[in-house]
């Protein structure tokens, strides 16, 4: 099979997964108690008013038709209107993504900046003091809930030292500096557990690759220990690290919901959470689908990254 065909097949597989996932979401939300029209109009509304609104929202159509029209809307960008706010769900989500996407990217960037040197440093000399310190960081970082890290950061750095705002988001219109400083603490809180996991994986991968023959070949060419480590061992150790980065995405998203809550950031997690408490089910439905899409798209990107990191996966025999 040619690589192009393989990628297409994989993409088709992911698309099928998305369809199944979306159907599952749809059915679950359908089964949820509470009629949207009744929620919108309140319990005192007349029966015929409710019926009229149901018709207007298209809720009286058969389930499969409604599912199809929802999926069609996903492709055209028309996701319907929020039951509570009346604003288009698409706009609502886009607004909130402007906070969540920078936040998660920032956190991932921080996590890589922490874990890569730490993991390589630890893996280069297993059993040394540095290895011990990195291992302790990894064990604690994995065990500590990110929302608690967020609370501690607020306690010490915001309330204690007053370095950062304790929460809220001024919006990107208020200037880059203010917006970024509002994201720093949440990003750290989100990054630490990620960094811990990645440190562990990096360390293990470096230890394994360091025993490979080609590292010895590099040393035999006259490369010093560090040069061989960074030019030969590390590039070959990145594959499992990238895999783990992909596997961590669901955790990153869960984490974002929690951390946004701690720092009262108007992100997608807060939106989902608020929508749930207001029973704005159409928002819940779309947000959850969007999360699933993000997970799957990131997995596709990770697949593509493999090919860059490992030339063996790029060409075919």
């Amino acid at each position: 099979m040619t690589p192009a065909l393989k990628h297409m097949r994989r993409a088709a597989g992911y698309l099928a997964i998305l369809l199944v996932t979306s159907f599952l979401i749809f059915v679950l939300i359908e089964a949820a108690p509470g009629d949207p029209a009744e929620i919108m109009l309140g319990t005192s509304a007349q029966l015929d008013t409710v019926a009229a609104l149901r018709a207007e929202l298209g809720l009286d159509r058969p389930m499969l038709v409604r599912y199809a029209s929802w999926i069609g809307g996903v492709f055209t960008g028309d996701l319907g209107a929020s039951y509570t706010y009346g604003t288009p769900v698409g706009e609502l989500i886009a607004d909130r993504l402007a906070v969540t996407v920078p936040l998660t990217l920032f956190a991932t960037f921080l996590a890589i900046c922490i874990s890569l040197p730490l993991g390589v440093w630890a893996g280069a000399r297993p059993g040394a003091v540095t290895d011990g310190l990195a291992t302790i960081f990894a064990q604690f970082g994995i065990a500590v809930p990110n929302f608690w890290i967020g609370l501690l950061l607020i306690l010490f750095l915001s309330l204690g030292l007053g370095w950062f705002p304790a929460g809220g988001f001024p919006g990107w219109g208020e200037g880059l500096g203010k917006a970024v400083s509002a994201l720093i603490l949440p990003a750290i809180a989100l990054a630490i557990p990620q960094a811990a996991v990645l440190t562990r994986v990096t360390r293990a991968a470096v230890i394994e690759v360091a025993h490979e023959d080609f590292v010895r070949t590099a040393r035999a060419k006259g490369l010093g220990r560090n040069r061989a480590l960074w030019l030969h061992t590390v590039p070959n150790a990145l594959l499992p690290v990238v895999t783990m980065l992909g596997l961590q995405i669901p955790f990153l998203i869960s984490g974002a919901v929690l951390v946004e809550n701690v720092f009262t950031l108007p992100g997608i997690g807060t939106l989902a959470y608020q929508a749930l408490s207001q029973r704005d089910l159409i928002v819940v439905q779309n947000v959850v689908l969007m999360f699933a899409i993000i997970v799957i798209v990131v997995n596709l990107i990770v697949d593509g990254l493999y090919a860059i990191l490992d030339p063996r996966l790029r060409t075919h025999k």
Partner: protein
Amino acid sequence: MKRIPLNLWLGGLISFLLVGSAILSRFWTPEDPIKMNILNRLKGPGDAGLLGADQIGRDVFSMIMAGGWTSLGIAVTATIVGGSIGTLIGVTAAAKSGAFEKVSGWVNSVLFAFPPILSAILLGALLGPGGLTSIIAIGVFMIPVFTRISRGAAMQIWSRDYIKAAKMSGKGQALITVEHILPNISAQLLVQFAIQTGLGILAEAGLSFLGMGIAPPTPSWGRMLADAQTYIGTAPHLVLAPGIAIALAVLGLNLLGDGLRDLSDPRRKQAS
């Protein structure tokens, strides 16, 4: 005499204390963990009980003990349920391969897209918040993990010669799975059980922090933190105790899992 690895005895000790205090909380706590005592409102450690009192004067230490039961109960139940389903799918996929394996791979990919908080948001819409929602949301997340682990481990056993011999002698797949595969992968499953229970505790804390977990007044570590957030400026001690409890519990279970793995497979010790 094998030396007991540091992580095993440290993890074992913490896990033992966690389970012990959780069980003890069913029979005895210093104070009633749900009893208000407005006179003790927001008092610090030592002034009211070992760890102080919360915004309505409940004893924090007692709440930590009782919250341990909640966390552990939900995490263990979810891991047992999700782990059993996942293992069943995994060993079946290893035995049958072919179409079943493919389908189970797909199911996993779908489930994988649903981290506990997302499932809980969805399920919350359906069932409302509560212990059951938490258990299902966390359990669903455990399924793909156990499927992957058990399938991989089972496939390794299937390729052994004595399994081929058993096949030749006419034993069915189910019988071989029960007689040979499951006993041989049980060590790996036990290791995973400890680690996943730790993750379950983290997830439960997250859910109850968001108010999607077990309903009040049943104490839970996540809800304690959510309440503490309101009083973070005036009573910072309320933030510390539940967080440390969560972190220690997860750390202990992780160390226990790692330690068990080192013990059962010393070869992996250096690399893991």
